[in-house]
């Protein structure tokens, strides 16, 4: 079905990507590997890494701060990504209908994603401010006592989640919308002709056709959300207490604030491993869904 020349060309198509990735990730990977099993020291104006076996890992597994950061990260990912997917799907379906001002809504809904996370962090920090923020002002006028959005240990993590949802629902929306646009209309019409209801069309035709794009969107969002740091760094700095300290923020504090390079790398590498496992589980779970489309 596919010519020999095309097969050779396939390699050519793939090679730039593979080579670029190798050039940029091989050395960092080995460097990190040396750090996580080693001890970094600055001696005589240079960096030396000595082998210490699993010392960093022993320290990591005994560190309550690590387990806290892991739990915080998992909670943010679980809540934020699932809500983002549902909201994004809902919005994509709404805009995909023949509504007036479709173009307007399409652009407007993407805007939060276009703002740099640093700016998003500052913006929501202002909005959630318990003294001078707009929400507090409204609540006070209504006679409700103010909520410590960023100052209450049990609330702050949800403020981070809200911020993440605000910013990244557009990502889900855009991917699902693009995928919806690519569904041939006659598929849907054919189902309609067979007498399927709106819900059945959605359940039997649209959702399966969206599966590859959904999987891609969820996986990518998951990967990014696991690494969440910019907004938290600006909004709470990980506080109050450690209630919003994510893995990357923890790694940053150890690696770059205390300049404990080896332990910082160990924390970050453990995040990499967590992510690898989570992604493999996810990909395997969804493989069958995707293969249906690949045939």
């Amino acid at each position, binding site marked *: *079905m596919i010519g020999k020349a095309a097969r050779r060309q396939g390699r050519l198509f793939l090679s730039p990507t593979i080579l670029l*990735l190798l050039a*940029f990730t091989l*050395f960092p990977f080995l*460097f990190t590997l040396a750090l996580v099993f080693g001890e970094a020291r600055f001696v005589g104006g240079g960096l030396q890494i000595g082998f210490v076996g699993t010392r960093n890992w022993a320290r990591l597994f005994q560190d309550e701060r690590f387990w806290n950061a892991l739990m915080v990260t998992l909670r943010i990912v679980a809540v934020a990504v699932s809500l983002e997917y549902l909201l994004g799907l809902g919005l994509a379906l709404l805009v995909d209908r023949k509504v007036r001002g479709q173009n307007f809504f399409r*652009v407007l809904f993407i*805007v939060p994603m276009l703002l740099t996370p640093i700016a998003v962090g500052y913006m929501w920090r202002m909005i959630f401010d318990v003294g001078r923020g707009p929400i507090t002002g409204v609540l006070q006028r209504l006679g409700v006592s103010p909520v410590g959005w960023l100052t209450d240990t049990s609330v702050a993590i949800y403020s981070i989640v809200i911020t993440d949802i605000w910013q990244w629902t557009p990502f889900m929306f855009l991917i699902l919308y693009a995928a919806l646009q690519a569904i041939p209309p006659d598929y849907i019409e054919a189902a309609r002709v067979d007498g399927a209801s709106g819900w059945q069309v959605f359940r039997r035709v649209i959702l399966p056709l969206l599966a590859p794009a959904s999987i*891609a969107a969820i996986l990518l969002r998951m990967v990014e959300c696991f690494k969440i740091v910019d907004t938290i760094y600006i909004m709470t700095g990980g506080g109050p207490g450690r209630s919003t300290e994510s893995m990357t923020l923890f790694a940053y504090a150890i690696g770059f604030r205390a300049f404990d390079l080896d332990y910082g790398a160990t924390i970050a590498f453990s995040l990499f491993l967590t992510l690898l496992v989570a992604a*493999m589980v996810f990909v395997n779970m969804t493989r069958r869904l995707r293969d249906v489309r690949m045939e």
Partner: protein
Amino acid sequence: MQRRLGTVAVYGLLLLWSLVVVAPLFWMVTTSIKDKNDVFLGPKYLPWVDFIPTGQWWVRLFTVEKDAVLYPYLNSLIVASISAFLTTILGAMAAYALTRVRFKFGPMKNEDILFWIVSQRFMPPIVTVFAIFVMYRVTRLLDTHIGLILAYTVFNLPLAVWLMSNFLAQIPRSVEEAAWVDGASLWTTLFRVVVPMVLPSLVATFLFCFVFAWNEFLFALILSYSRAQTVPLLIASQHFQRGPQWWDISALSTLAVLPPIAITVALQKYFVKGLIPIGK
């Protein structure tokens, strides 16, 4: 009757989400026209009602601070657009090969290659960035546009490949197969046949890569010093001994979101269904 109710519900939901999107942005934009004490002794909501707007921060951005603002902007534009373009092309090519040709490198098959590519984005930048700093030091790429462009291209490639391969997996092959039978090369089928079909997806991918590069913070922070400084760094540097300069941060953030919005508006016609020839 039911239908009308449905329509009302649709518009109601759309407007509700529009409000969710706009309200925080409204706060940001109005903060950029507030006096310092209107910020500190707030909350002040509506200009001319709650507070008297001031243009002083904006005026300063375009006069005293002109150069300090302009260069990071140009840097961001150059770096983000070139890297997004490269990423999209390379990513689409790799994804096309992966979804159409059967590869075998040792034990690695297509699925494994794809997963390996995607997994390159799992590595938290916080670790890789120090190693890349060392590499750039040796190759003299620190504080250069090329350095940032390369870093962002590599950083976004897994995203582009993964997205494109999932979009391409969705496309029925019947059209291409006809071309292959006629002896067409991958190059021809990709750019003549497939690209027009997946234009919305390509545009979405480009937009993501642009936005991620435009907004990226950590790489820019470590790999640039002064000449290649980007907009997010400029915003973050408005926080110093007097705390966050909310008005400057707000004005700069507003300014920073304009180019991506402009690009989205410019590209948005490619999202329109009519361009997709499937099912014709």
